């Protein structure tokens, strides 16, 4: 970290706006140079050389521009040999969680027969505090097929609105970790991996580290990047502390499809670069690919799925990076559309060498719009599709996407219902109406050849 901090202070000065413009220009040039083309009818590219080109272009982008430090306004740059050295020394797999609930998270390759791991939870969703929060997390933890739970964002703590950088945010960090632990204990899985607690300030996150009643060394915390390819000294300081504490580090990136990097092709390139930044600057053990459509905030349309697939293929063909597709959906729980989006995301990610995370819903705008059932389906689809080839997945997606893609406009997407409306709060089991929708989609998937 000392060398990275040194470069954050002594690197090349650049105004942030110039960095954005440089990134925009370079992405455009690289797309042209490598002739990378999005094909809406081949969502999962079968062109290995294009996947390799995306990797090479992403590496070039990262080495040329570096990782921008917003605090010092300097570019943290690396030589090619330094990056290659770090990539070479990545492990083949890790064990997350502890005791009987520990799972092995391995690198996955394109068309890999090993099933993906699922990191679940109300990702990016505003949640009610207290008992409802514990039950929401329990709805994920009690699904035997789910490997890890993470956090939603609390709106209040003890009835007090949480503002970033306030005492309440620090208190919320401790409560989130405590409640996550309570949820996995209640689900009978006390050693299950907890992958994050969602508070914004890096300083507040540290409050969650507690070997007895919080984040343990077998758990993890996310360190975020800012859009695109940016960090800050606060985030690097969080990395420093997490490394010395010894828990896992998740590199969270939210590349914007349609943003500075342009369309799917440029976004794929910058996403590869953001993984590389996570390896070398964040010492990340796994990476969250949270692709965000500039308008609809999801990643489950043709452009989004093409992008995550080619990034997954690029990384798994060229590195040992473990990337997790954060399946962010436009629709909400209690709707068929959300499950259709999750199914598409699960199949596309699995065949492309990615792991799974999810599901996010409604652009994170609606409170308590997250349940364990959609995560169950996401993982089931992932497990069922491990034997599929890319061509088969394309055939499936070309038939499956028309069943939901007209509903992906964020203003049009069905919002569904809250956890409290969809689950029995006594038994923490999905109510009949939600189960019937799930069963219907499951039957349809079986008819489409996804044998879940």
């Amino acid at each position, binding site marked *: 970290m000392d060398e990275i901090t040194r470069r954050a202070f002594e690197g090349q000065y650049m105004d942030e706006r110039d960095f954005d413009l440089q990134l*925009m220009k370079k*992405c*455009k040039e690289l797309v042209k140079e490598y002739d990378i083309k999005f094909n809406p009818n081949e969502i999962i590219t079968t062109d290995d050389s294009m996947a390799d080109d995306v990797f090479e272009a992403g590496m070039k982008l990262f080495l040329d521009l570096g990782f921008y430090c*917003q605090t010092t306004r300097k570019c943290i740059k690396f030589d090619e040999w330094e990056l290659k050295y770090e990539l070479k020394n990545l492990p083949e797999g890790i064990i997350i969680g502890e005791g009987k609930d520990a799972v092995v998270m391995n690198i996955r390759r394109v068309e890999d027969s090993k099933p993906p791991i699922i990191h679940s939870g109300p990702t990016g969703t*505003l949640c009610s505090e207290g008992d409802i929060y514990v039950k929401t997390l329990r709805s994920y933890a009690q699904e035997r097929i789910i490997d890890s739970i993470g956090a939603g*964002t609390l*709106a209040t703590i003890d009835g007090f*609105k*949480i*503002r*970033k*950088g306030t005492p309440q*945010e620090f208190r919320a960090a401790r409560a989130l970790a405590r409640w996550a632990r309570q949820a996995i204990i209640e689900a009978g899985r006390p050693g299950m991996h907890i992958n994050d607690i969602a*508070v*914004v300030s890096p300083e507040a996150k540290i409050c969650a580290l507690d070997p007895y009643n919080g984040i343990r060394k077998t758990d993890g915390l996310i360190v975020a990047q*800012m*859009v695109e390819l940016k960090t*800050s000294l606060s985030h690097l300081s969080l990395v420093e502390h997490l490394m010395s504490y010894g828990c896992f580090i998740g590199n969270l990136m939210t590349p*914007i499809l*349609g*943003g*500075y990097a*342009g*369309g799917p092709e*440029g976004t794929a390139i910058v996403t590869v670069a953001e993984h590389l930044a996570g390896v070398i600057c964040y010492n990340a053990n796994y990476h969250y690919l949270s692709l965000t*459509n*500039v*308008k609809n*905030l999801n990643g489950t349309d043709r*452009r989004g799925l093409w992008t995550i697939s080619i990034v997954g293929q690029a990384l798994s063909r060229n590195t040992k990076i473990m990337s997790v597709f954060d399946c962010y959906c436009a629709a909400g729980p209690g709707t068929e559309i959300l499950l259709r989006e999750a199914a598409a995301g699960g199949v596309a990610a699995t065949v492309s060498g990615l792991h799974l995370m999810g599901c996010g819903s409604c*652009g*994170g*705008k*609606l409170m308590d719009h997250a349940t364990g059932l959609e995560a169950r389906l996401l993982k089931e689809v992932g497990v069922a599709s491990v034997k599929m080839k890319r061509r088969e997945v394309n055939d499936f997606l070309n038939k499956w996407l028309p069943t939901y893609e007209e509903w992906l406009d*964020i*203003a049009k997407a069905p919002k569904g219902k809250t956890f409290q409306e969809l689950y029995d709060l006594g038994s923490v089991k999905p109510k009949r109406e939600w189960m019937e929708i799930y069963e219907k989609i499951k039957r349809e998937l079986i008819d489409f050849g996804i044998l879940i």
Partner: protein
Amino acid sequence: MSESIFNELAQCVIDGNEEKARIIAKRIIEMGLDPLKAINDGLMKGMRQVGEDFSNLKIYLPEVMMAAEAMKAALSILEPKILEKKIMEERRKVVIGTVQGDIHDIGKNIVALLLKANGFEVYDLGRDVPIDEFIKRAEEVKADIIAASTLLSTSMPYMEDLIKMLEERGLRDKYIVMVGGGPVTREWAKSIGADGYGEDGDEAVRVAKELLKVRGK
């Protein structure tokens, strides 16, 4: 004749062709055509199309930025002529920023860009902006609109605080307050007493124009 050259100017904006936009603008002046009409029927028309295409994801942010550059190039030629004729309408002013606690700014940047391209004078305060800074700047520049954005739910309360502070200081009626950003919803915007909300940049521009019209500004 004038219609076809204005259309050509609109196309330069759509194509993001800065150089051609400058040439066409010069030709418009040489031909003695009304520069204000060139802005309204050429540049603004092109920019409306760009905003719509971006909203429908037919194009992406780099194309919008190029279109804005083309528009800026043409404006640099047309505007001085309007000023000479003293027929330049006073531009509406917007103070915009990402609220306190939030360092994300791509959404705010898109809205600022589209507002600028649609003829607003935009004062971009950047990100992590304390609420009193919005008010201070709005007072300084005599703004019409205060626009606040955030991607974080933990920064949303600061938007509410902004409106409360305007009320406390007796300034609420002076400004149109608009809010937006990832977790912000139309319903929430209404509940805190904001005047307007934009689901995306295109809607933000539309709403800003409508609100100004309603207020007779």
